[in-house]
């Protein structure tokens, strides 16, 4: 979170540049030249996968557009959105409506439902409040959404003959998904943001052993291993409970989606369990609308909510009601969720000002605050705040910080790699130094290659594409019947001739190959003479060789032929013309090239000499 928020501010000034580069990039795509576009942000990543020369899959991450908005998947044919956070889908209407992208866009159902609300809200703030011009309009959002194709989890979508995509559950926020993209025999998994630890409203990310060529994963928390969420939750609840019991008010500044729902569920269940009566409010508007969708997409939530929703939908809050401005002055304890999360403007700041004077009250900041905001100041212990109009505000209320983050930590990232078993890993979306650490760990523990490309850097990876070869059924059956049943995990050695003719690959039996090529078969025989010391007669020596081999090569057929030679399978052993010296014998060993292995083994065996006679 930290680094992301940091460049959030930094990037804002580069908005124009971003736009331009993005536009240029799209132009390039349309033009059909697959040039690498130089993008500004450090998490930009561009992969090219060469597959069958014509298929290119490009992945772009980090198209910054006023707010950090990236993680847009662009292939030649399609775009798939990992989830609805603005940094992942903010540029969508711009891309489709103003730039002119007209391929299909894939989203999960919840993302498709919530995305337009967020975009509309985003548009309102940018256009109506900040007065930005040259921005997309409401109509554009609507038009854009019409182009979206909704996908289900684990549903394989055939984009065209070659390209297929499949979504996996990613935790993080409602509807977040990881996409598995396969083109031919090559595949990529792009994670977007994901969370490997389940929380109060969502389950953990999960992927099967899809063994992609590349796994592109975020690495926000590359160097962090987080503590159990239980301690965190317990702390949070204890603080809220104590304040309420003492008659204080609790303010929780949150952003509209994601953590707000988790905390709502957390407090709701706690209130239910402990039979508490104090009211809980959340700000109207965005949160309210989003909650509506949370109610609908129960299948995307965690086990507890899924199981109990028949009795009661957990998102139909019993204790949590919509907030009205006038409630802030009500006496007695209460808990209020108010936007925005950093206390820099809006409702949360107003309530904060009202309640700051009472030491019974408490503010709990559940996430990171950017430097310069009120949230950041109070977290750092400032007790006197200067407000506009030279007023000072004395903060007497208790200030607490709780970290609720929905990103995978280092262990989670490793866990995902273990689940998916990729051949290469690509780290994006993180600080270089931290990524270097994780990269080293991944290489060390999985012994697979890992890359962390810088902006605009192209990574070339070698893949092992499958080359289909036709094989005649007769040959296959013959080979299969020879050994044990085939095992898909182990390669099997077989004899055959590979014919590459007119662009087709065929595996046929040697005889057939000879026939097709019109060649006659040549036989190749190796003959080798071995000299051994033996003082017996020829026949005696041969007998001894026979018995010696018989004792060593138990599984082979060894024959003693009447013409005074020994046959081991098809290998012939005999004594050549008697030499002058009575003590030495020259033995001829002859084998065809198919039996090369056995033949050379026999010669080495004979060279070692015969054992001292047993007689």
């Amino acid at each position, binding site marked *: 979170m930290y680094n992301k928020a940091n460049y959030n501010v930094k990037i804002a000034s580069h908005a124009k540049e971003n736009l331009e580069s993005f536009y240029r990039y799209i132009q390039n795509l349309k033009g059909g030249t697959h040039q690498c576009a130089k993008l500004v942000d450090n998490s930009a990543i561009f992969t090219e996968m060469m597959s069958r020369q014509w298929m290119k899959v490009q992945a772009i991450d980090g198209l910054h557009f006023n707010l950090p908005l990236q993680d847009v998947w662009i292939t030649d044919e399609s775009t798939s959105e990992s989830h609805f956070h603005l940094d992942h889908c903010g540029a969508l209407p711009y891309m489709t409506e103003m730039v002119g992208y007209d391929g299909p866009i894939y989203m999960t159902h919840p993302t498709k439902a919530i995305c337009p609300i967020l975009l509309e809200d985003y548009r309102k703030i940018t256009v109506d409040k900040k007065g930005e011009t040259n921005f997309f309009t409401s109509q554009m959002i609507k038009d854009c959404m019409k182009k979206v194709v909704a996908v289900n989890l684990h549903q394989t979508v055939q984009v065209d003959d070659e390209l297929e995509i499949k979504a996996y559950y990613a935790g993080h926020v409602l509807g977040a998904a990881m996409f598995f993209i396969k083109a031919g025999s090559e595949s990529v998994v792009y994670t977007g943001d994901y969370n490997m630890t389940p929380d109060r409203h969502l389950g953990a990310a999960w992927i099967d052993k899809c063994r992609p060529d590349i796994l592109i994963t975020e690495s926000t928390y590359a160097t962090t*291993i987080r503590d159990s969420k239980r301690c965190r939750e317990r702390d949070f609840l204890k603080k809220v409970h104590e304040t309420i019991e003492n008659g204080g008010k609790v303010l929780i500044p949150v952003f509209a989606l994601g953590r707000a729902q988790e905390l709502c569920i957390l407090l709701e269940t706690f209130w*239910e369990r402990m039979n508490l009566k104090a009211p809980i409010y959340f700000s109207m508007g965005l949160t309210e609308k989003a909650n509506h969708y949370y109610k609908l997409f129960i299948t995307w939530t965690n086990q507890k909510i899924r199981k109990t929703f028949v009795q009661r939908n957990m998102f139909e809050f019993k204790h949590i009601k919509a907030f009205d401005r006038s409630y802030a002055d009500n006496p007695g304890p209460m808990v209020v969720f108010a936007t925005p999360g950093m206390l820099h403007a809006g409702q949360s700041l107003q309530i904060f000002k009202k309640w700051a004077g009472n030491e019974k009250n408490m503010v709990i900041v559940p996430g990171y605050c950017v430097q310069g905001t009120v949230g950041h100041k109070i977290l750092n212990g400032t007790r006197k705040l200067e407000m506009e109009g030279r007023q000072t505000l004395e903060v007497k209320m208790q200030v607490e910080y709780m970290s609720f983050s929905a990103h995978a930590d280092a262990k989670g990232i490793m866990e995902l790699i273990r689940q998916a078993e990729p051949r290469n890993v690509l780290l994006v979306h993180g600080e270089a130094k931290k990524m270097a650490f994780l990269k080293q760990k991944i290489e060390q523990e999985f012994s697979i290659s890992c890359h962390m490309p810088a902006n605009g850097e192209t990574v070339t990876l070698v893949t092992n594409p499958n080359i289909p070869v036709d094989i005649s059924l007769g040959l296959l059956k013959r080979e299969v019947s020879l050994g044990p049943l085939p095992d898909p995990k182990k390669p099997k050695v077989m004899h055959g001739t590979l014919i590459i003719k007119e662009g087709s690959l065929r595996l046929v039996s040697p005889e057939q190959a000879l026939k097709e090529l019109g060649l006659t078969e040549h036989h190749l025989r190796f003959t080798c003479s071995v000299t051994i010391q033996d003082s017996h007669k020829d026949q005696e020596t041969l007998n001894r060789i026979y018995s010696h081999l018989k004792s060593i090569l138990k599984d082979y057929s060894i024959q003693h032929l009447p013409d005074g030679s020994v046959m081991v399978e098809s290998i012939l052993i005999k004594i050549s013309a008697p030499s002058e010296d009575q003590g030495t014998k020259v033995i001829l060993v002859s084998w065809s090239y198919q039996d090369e292995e056995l033949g050379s083994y026999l010669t080495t065996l004979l060279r070692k000499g015969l054992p001292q006679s047993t007689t």
Partner: protein
Amino acid sequence: MAAHLKKRVYEEFSKVVQQQLEEVPSKKLRLTKPSKSAALHIDLCKATTSTDALQYLLQFARKPVEAESVEGVVRILLEHYYKENDKSVRLKIVSLLGLLSQTPGFVPDCIVEDVINLLQNEKSHQVLSQLLDTLLVIGSRLQENLPLRLRLIEIACKRLTDTSHGVRSKCLQMIGCLGSVEKLSTKEAESLAAKDVQKIIGEYFNDQDPRVRTAAIKAMLQLHERGMKLHQTNYSQACKLLTDDFEQVRSEAVQLIWVLSQLYPESIVPIPSSSEEIRLVDDAFGKICHTISDTSWVVRVQAAKLLGSMQQVSSEFLVQTLDKNLMSDLRRKRTAHERAKELYSSGEFSSGRKWGDDAPKEELNTDAVNLIDSGACGAFVHGLEDEMYEVRISAVESLCALAQSSPSFAEKCLDFLVDMFNDEIEEVRLQSIHSLRKISNHITLREDQLDTVLAVLEDSSRDIREALHELLCYTNVSTKDCIRLALVDLLKNLTKYPTDKNSIWKCLKFLGGRHPTLVLPLVPELLSTHPFFDTPEPDMDDPAYIAVLVLIFNAAKSCPTMTALFSDHTFRHYAYLRDSLSHLVPELRLPGRKMAAMSDYSTLAPVEDSSQQFLRQSLERLYTIHLLDPQGAQELLDFTIRDLQRLGVLQSELAGMADFSATYLRCQLLLMKALQEKLWNVAAPLYLKQNAVVYGASKEILEETYKMEFMYAGLENTQVAKVHHMRLQAMALQLILTACTSRGIEPLLGASEKFLHEVDVFQRCFSSELPHMRNCFIDKVLELMPRLAASKPSDLVKILQAALRQSSFLHLTLPDQIHRASAIIIEPTGESDNPLKFTSGLVVALDIDATLEHVQDPQTTVKVQVVYPDGQVQMIHPKPSDFRNPGPGRHRLITQVYLSHTAWTEPCQIELRLLLAYSSSRSKASALGAATKQTWSDSVENLVPPENTIEGTIPFSKPVKVFIMPKPARR
């Protein structure tokens, strides 16, 4: 044999064919007892298409077949099999063969050959695997037949090379189920089947089909279950299977590894990629721990469950399972647990109030960080945070099991268990509370831990709170502040949920008894006494004050100095509470007061023995009863009953046995008295008065026998038979009485038929007991049974009279333990003077809380009875979910009953009591037990279980009176 049977079969349906020829088949068929095989044959002949045949077969499968006609049916099926071309029909026929050979009373060895022959010519893989399945069924029915088993295994081995996964899996299953475990003699060992079955199965661990791999591991486990010792060589293979792509395979592999680790815990295995070696059990533990982060939750649950039973694992590995190195930006970070501990030991106790309080400090060496958990590292940390609650529950259970055997581990896992108290699923919370209770003798809670534990006291679920109270009973705490904290929170709990009163008092009793020295310094504060001033006397009816007193008095029991701190009224209150809540307040040694008779409980043990002896002797005394004259016998019974009853009162452990035998003897006494009345059997309805006595006696006996049968847990078949026998006698008495009193033969006819039926039922149910009942009533009746069934009711009555008089007393033998079912209604107490007011015609809900002891199957038997002052009686059936089972033999009923009535002018009391409902049909079903078990149940559709009708009820709790007042509705 076969020829003979064949002949019979042909006879059977040749008869039918003949009838068909007469062309009135339907009518004639109804006259003869319909033969299953014949009907099937007709159906199959009629079937023109294979679908029809399939339909007939399916219909046929719904009805069970008697053992005698199985053989015939099988022949017909086989015949049809050869003719059939459609493989689905063949499949069904083969599956029917399997089902038929399971029929009890049928020995399937005659069809083995046929089935094996079928195997030769079959082409379809599905039918093949079904055939193997049938062979498996037959083989397991004929476990004793070793040559047959060897032959079947040989067949299975041959078929192992089949291309279909189904056939291969079935073969493996067969080898697993039938593979010989015993040592074979040399002759048999030569055959192929005697080859090492483990080796054969092991080869299929690497099969290309995951289903076959699964079947192979299952077969291996099956061999283990059947008592074969698995080879250690399987271990490395099993370890490889842990990384299989398929969850079924992994799940079975985990089990196999576990089995091997239990078999060879101490053997040494090398660690790959290093030269070190470790014990096999440690290695297996590490491997199973690793699977706790598997992708499939089925495997995770499996792994989490198995971990708990690996007690032999070394402690270093055990401790690793809770290890999780935290880091932030490459710097070491302490976990919240460590921080809490440190804060506690350093003395400062302020929680982090500002951001960055938990900022990481120490730099980490990047090489030292191990991101992927190797071996046992952090297994439980993962398991407890899993997404699926099934995994979490299993992890909690395993954690508890391991902690119970290792105190040091118990200390370490404490924080994790306490964390689980905040789980989102109630079951998990409850389980972790129970787990903590089980290991609480190993641990002492720190203040911050206790704080977390106590926070759960506010939970709205009663189960959770009571579990927590129970936990606190067994907890050790370290400081006096902990005691204060616990007391304050318990009192808070009491004000929030006043219904927890009893449970909280009990909890404080143990808390005080365990920590007398920690309570001592708190006493002045708790009693709010002051050295100089008199403080006002607290209200004696305040439950909170009672709670405090319970704590103090129990602490004072082992801390004599404490009484000096009491003020006068405390002593008075003590006397009051000692009397009213004697189970919570112990006897104290008060200054100036004599300790009441020092009847120490330690002397009780020998008494128990002697009382048991006494019980036995009293019963033995009765063996001589037949020697005595009637008067003497009655007296003997009389005082034995008295003895037993008294014993039951004195010795609560033996109360069940004593009461049971006393009741039995009382029935005997009543029967004797009734038979003594010489007048009633003389004749005529003139002796009305006498009849009334006998009638009353027989009725009472009937009632008592029902009580004996259904209210006592732990009865064996012998006792049940005796009780039934007693009931039969009472029925006979009633029958005779009916014969004497009523005119005309009609009522008698019905009654005698009913009686004969009862005798018949008795004979069937207790056939095994009959030999022990020589010379008694039933023995005599059964002797004459053939005559009885034919004779007229009047003759029957005469025979019964004679039998009753000549029958001798059946002596009672007792099993080791008999418990009488009892119930105590805790809530409502019936003490309230304020009537429960409600508008007439509407309903009011009344909470009922009761404990039941030794009730079998309370969900179906326990009912609540409400008696209104106007005599109106209602019976309420509590929901099955209202019953909880806190311990063996104990149940708790927490339910609501709805009351309603028309308007009354003034409040009145209603009576509530608990009833035990019984029905004799149920008891018979249980007595017949396995014999009537449906082997065909899988093919029988919707076989409605016999309706559980309530025949009668036995009240088994003291009635509680509740004041209610239905007000007239306001107009």
